[in-house]
């Protein structure tokens, strides 16, 4: 693990290393302006890290909820560049938690790797998560990440087996543990064997270990927090937001909708 001796912005901004709540929202869903406000609402709701999704035409790792959110965002013309440009707006309104940009690799390639990391840095984005880049394909990204002081978030899955140690040992920022095989989305039951998997991951990792994929109830949140350092919640939050779609789009109705979003999220994670 070749960690920089200088603290990254991610580490600086992360207020704690336990009991983390990491929500996922999709840039531009339901509108760019709403996304900025939603980021602040999530911070107010107790979010420790914000995972900001970039919509993609072919989101291989995502279930229907996030696919549909991406579809809506794409229809509004959202893209990687505009997604990045949302973050300074969030910061100027008071967002202090670390922001992880979540994007598939193809838009990154088109954007240009160096340009991307430079822009991440310049736009106060602290980390990058590319769901279709496994460890073996991440060399180039890692080099840029190191150069620009951006954390590259890794994923580890129950079937990563021999690779769990390798992935966990080189993880930076936090380590994203996939709770079960499959794509993102709500699940009624979470895998039984998750505790031993998480034990193993934690034993190798020097950064917080958060669990994602399928967490959608307060009960699941509490269960997962027992075994890990935090929870990542995506599809459930997208659903909550989509419940107030029209109000969030409307500038006048937005404040009251944000309140209701906050209330639902607090109930989910408290």
């Amino acid at each position, binding site marked *: 693990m070749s960690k920089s001796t200088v603290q990254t912005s991610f580490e600086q901004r992360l207020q704690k290393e336990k009991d983390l709540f990491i929500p996922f929202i999709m840039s531009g869903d339901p509108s760019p302006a709403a996304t900025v406000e939603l980021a602040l609402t999530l911070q107010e709701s107790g979010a420790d890290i914000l995972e900001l999704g970039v919509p993609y*035409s072919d989101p291989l*790792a995502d279930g229907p909820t996030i696919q549909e959110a991406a579809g809506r965002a794409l229809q509004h013309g959202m893209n990687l560049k505009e997604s990045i440009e949302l973050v300074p707006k969030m910061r100027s309104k008071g967002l202090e938690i670390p922001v992880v940009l979540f994007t598939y690799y193809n838009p990154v390639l088109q954007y240009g790797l160096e340009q991307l990391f430079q822009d991440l840095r310049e736009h106060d984005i602290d980390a990058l998560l590319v769901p279709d880049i496994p460890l073996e394909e991440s060399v180039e990204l890692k080099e840029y990440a190191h150069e620009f002081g951006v954390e590259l978030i890794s994923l580890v899955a129950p079937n990563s087996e021999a690779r769990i140690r390798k992935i966990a040992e080189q993880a930076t920022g936090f380590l994203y543990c996939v709770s079960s095989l499959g794509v993102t989305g709500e699940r009624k039951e979470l895998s039984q064997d998750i505790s031993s998997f998480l034990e193993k991951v934690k034993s190798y990792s020097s950064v917080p270990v958060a669990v994602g994929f399928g967490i959608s109830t307060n009960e699941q949140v509490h269960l997962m927090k027992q075994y890990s350092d935090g929870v990542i919640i995506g599809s459930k939050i997208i659903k909550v937001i989509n419940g107030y779609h029209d109000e969030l789009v409307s500038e006048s109705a937005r404040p009251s909708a944000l309140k209701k979003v906050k209330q639902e999220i607090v109930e989910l994670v408290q």
Partner: protein
Amino acid sequence: GRFGEYGGQFVPETLMAPLKEIDESLQAAMEDPSFIEAYHQALKDYSGRPTSFTYADQLSEYLGGAKIYLKREDLNHTGAHKLNNALGQALLAKRMGKEKIIAETGAGQHGVASATVAAKLGLESKVFMGEKDIERQQLNVFRMKLLGAEVIPVSSGNKTLKDATNEAIRFWVANCEDHYYLIGSVVGPHPYPKMVRDFQRVIGDETKDQILAEQGSLPNRIYACVGGGSNAIGMFYPFLEDEVELVGVEAAGKGVDTPEHAATITKGSDGIIHGSKTYLMQDEHGQITEPYSISAGLDYPGIGPEHAYLHASKRVRYESVTDDEALDALQLLSRKEGIIPAIESAHALAQAFKEVKDMDANQSIVINVSGRGDKDMSTIMNVLQEGE
């Protein structure tokens, strides 16, 4: 798992384990003479290989120029080269102890091939197919069901092949423990492009034997159509080290200067699709765009990574042919040789017909007739009757 800078495994972490399992099983299988024998036995006893090698005498005379030979993949069981690969992979799945296969399909050809081999080997099969394609290809849907496959409608994205592939991958991510994903072309993450090529190279291997038996020398040029590119790579691969010009032909749809085409190499750029680095059709933001071709089998926004490499290294020349040119070639082959080719294959034919006139009578070319045209009759009937 690379072809130059192309290929790789750009997949969610969860797929790394099943890909590794396949890679290791494949290597062991390919070194096991009993596996190789079972594969070739099935090709012979079940699929009808070796497929014929036809001298197109009427056509050669009509066009003038080089002698034209046709490799007859249309004579395979289920009507195209698809079965070579489906059989190989299903045998591998069975060897790996998987009792369920999944597959994606566009027009239904690979779906039918997968359902076919699943039936023959006693495996369960699920075929992912876009809702729009299900609507357009009801007969193939019925055919798959008749073969015992479960056809799973895909409603995401544009509801066509690309989305069916995404959905098949998603399903596989969640069910990789007992499911084998049988990809239909030389696309996807390593080891698929290599594996599919190795199961399709029988086309080129046979062709080499057949042309040597026929004329004692290799052909001057070989033509094959390219969508994902499995028939082309299967044909080209055994000739890569030879002095034979290889020509891959993409679908130019309504023209490469219109938005409606599928000419990935001609008009695409580097990127990632379905787990592999290759050429693809995308917008400036890296969103994959929907391709168009009259041919459902060439209507794919990517291309196999080995083709990207063969293009970059200039070993293979890639050209493109419009819908109209392909339709003309289809009609000419039907009328002159009594072979109605798949509209996919007609793209290769069209390019060859353009070029053969400038060649000498002592030269020869081979065109891969990757499939038969029966499946396209409705489409062609509608188009030709509209034009009347």
